[in-house]
């Protein structure tokens, strides 16, 4: 049944979308601006993208970011997946445990960062790449857990029972049946963790040390000296990579959920 929509409502939704995307659009447009001064358009160029890749500091920061993101993603994905499997049955019984797993998602980043800094300094743990990795693992586990757990609860017990009935040991059942069934969820969780790590500024800022400057921290440092078109170019790349990864994660998560309600990411 078609319903008549008030034209004001559709105008409103366009305004909302413009409100969200205008800042991003500005960065995108000015990353192609010939002029060094951001506020004036003088012509189209790719040169800022070029100079970005020949900038040693940018490349160092990128390498740091990638090392940290890949390492923390692997650790968080393994731990989060194991947690989702382990808590599969316990969940119905303990709402408290479930709530505690969600906590890092709702706790403000600034508090996460501060508390981690406090923890590391308490144990005299030298700040650097490893402290950032640990920090990123801490919050990524929750996201991986949420995504993988929803996948597991969707698959039911029948397939695993059928495998056991056919003579598969618990390990064989996991390896041949459970893992292939939850694999899209695991991958989606990993991509989510990677994106969060690459994008994180607040928590990294608290726990970073010398030689562990990540891209967001580097960008923040640059901004203090004025916004250059190079930053715009860098940000544009990061936006596209992040959005691409999030879309991939969503697609993976919904794949195979045919007919069922598509699950959404928790943010």
């Amino acid at each position, binding site marked *: 049944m078609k319903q008549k929509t008030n034209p004001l409502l559709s105008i409103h939704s366009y305004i909302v979308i413009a409100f969200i995307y205008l800042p991003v659009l500005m960065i995108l447009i000015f990353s192609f601006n010939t002029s060094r001064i951001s506020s004036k358009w003088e012509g189209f160029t790719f040169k800022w993208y070029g100079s970005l890749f020949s900038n040693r500091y940018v490349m160092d920061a990128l390498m740091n970011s990638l090392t940290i993101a890949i390492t923390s993603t692997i650790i968080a994905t393994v731990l989060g997946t194991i947690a989702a499997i382990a808590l599969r049955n316990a969940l119905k019984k303990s709402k408290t445990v479930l709530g505690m797993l969600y906590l890092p998602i709702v706790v403000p980043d600034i508090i996460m960062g501060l508390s981690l800094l406090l923890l590391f300094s308490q144990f005299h743990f030298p700040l650097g790449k490893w402290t950032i990795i640990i920090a990123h693992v801490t919050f990524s586990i929750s996201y991986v857990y949420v995504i993988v757990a929803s996948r597991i609860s969707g698959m039911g017990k029948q397939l695993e029972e059928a495998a*056991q009935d*056919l*003579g598969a040991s618990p390990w064989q059942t996991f390896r041949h049946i459970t893992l292939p069934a939850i694999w899209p969820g695991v991958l989606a969780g990993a991509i989510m963790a990677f994106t969060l790590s690459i994008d994180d500024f607040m928590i990294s800022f608290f726990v970073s040390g010398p030689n562990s400057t990540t891209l967001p921290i580097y960008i923040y440092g640059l901004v203090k000296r004025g916004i250059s078109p190079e930053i715009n170019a860098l940000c544009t790349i990061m936006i596209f990579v992040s959005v691409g990864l999030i879309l991939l994660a969503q697609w993976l998560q919904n794949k*195979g959920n045919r007919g069922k309600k598509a699950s959404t990411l928790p943010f």
Partner: protein
Amino acid sequence: MIQLVNIEKQFAGQPVVHPLSLTIEEGEFLTLLGPSGCGKTTILRMIAGFEQPTVGEIFLDGKNVTELPPNKRDLNLVFQHYALFPHMTVEQNIQFGLKMKKIPAAEQKERIAEAIRLTQLTPLAKRYPHQLSGGQQQRVAIARAIANKPRVLLLDEPLGALDLQLRKNLQAELKQLQRSLGITFVYVTHDQEEAMMMSDRIVIMNTGKIEQIGTPKEIYNRPQTLFAATFIGENNVFNEEDGRMFAVRPEKLIPVSDNSRGSKRTGVIQDIVYLGNVHKLVVHLDHEQTSVSICLDFTDEDTWQIGQQIGIDWSDASEVNIGP
């Protein structure tokens, strides 16, 4: 082949299966029959090893398997919703059990080929489950189970999700398969017609208890409890003034149009139902708040009318006493 000794099952303190014992013979087709929630599936799952009895022991081929996990039991279960592995082809599904048991590759091939042949799946071997119809998926589930050459095949309402015509065909096929394989079938269903048609013996269950065990013929002709009398086929239950209760099948009742000679009961015809090969009279009894059903075949040439006052008779031998 299988012995359940004083087994009992409770879920969260609620009894689902009351203490019962049951012996299943080698090579027989035994059906657990009852309405949903009667505990029949729980018994099947206890035999398969997915549930542990709260009390009691289970023996398989003389060996106590009560504590054994499902993968160590020499029997296979066909699940109600088939539980085919979606990421494997028909062939790979059938191969799975053989692979897990590390059976030599040459024998695996042979057994897969045989299972596929027996279940007529040859043209579908390379398909994935989602490319198959319900009936075909059912066949794959059975092929996957019998490829393991189990001593016992457990079937949990395997035809429940299929439409009537397909169900009728598969019932005959399954019965045929059981005869040619010669293995023990333990079949769970709530469909009494299906149970009557396929089984060597039927176990009628209600609210976690066994009501009666017997061949289809025994159960139809000599029901021992009120539940057994009314659950299997149509039946008329009469109460005598001395408290005696007995049942008479509709085809054993004789309508008498001239009831001047005192018949056993009298009543008024409420409805006449034609079913092709037979027709039925629904008669409201005169002195009891109940109706009975009389089944007549082609030999009946009388003309009956709704509202007609008739007598109802039967031979004493047709009475089946129910209850204590």
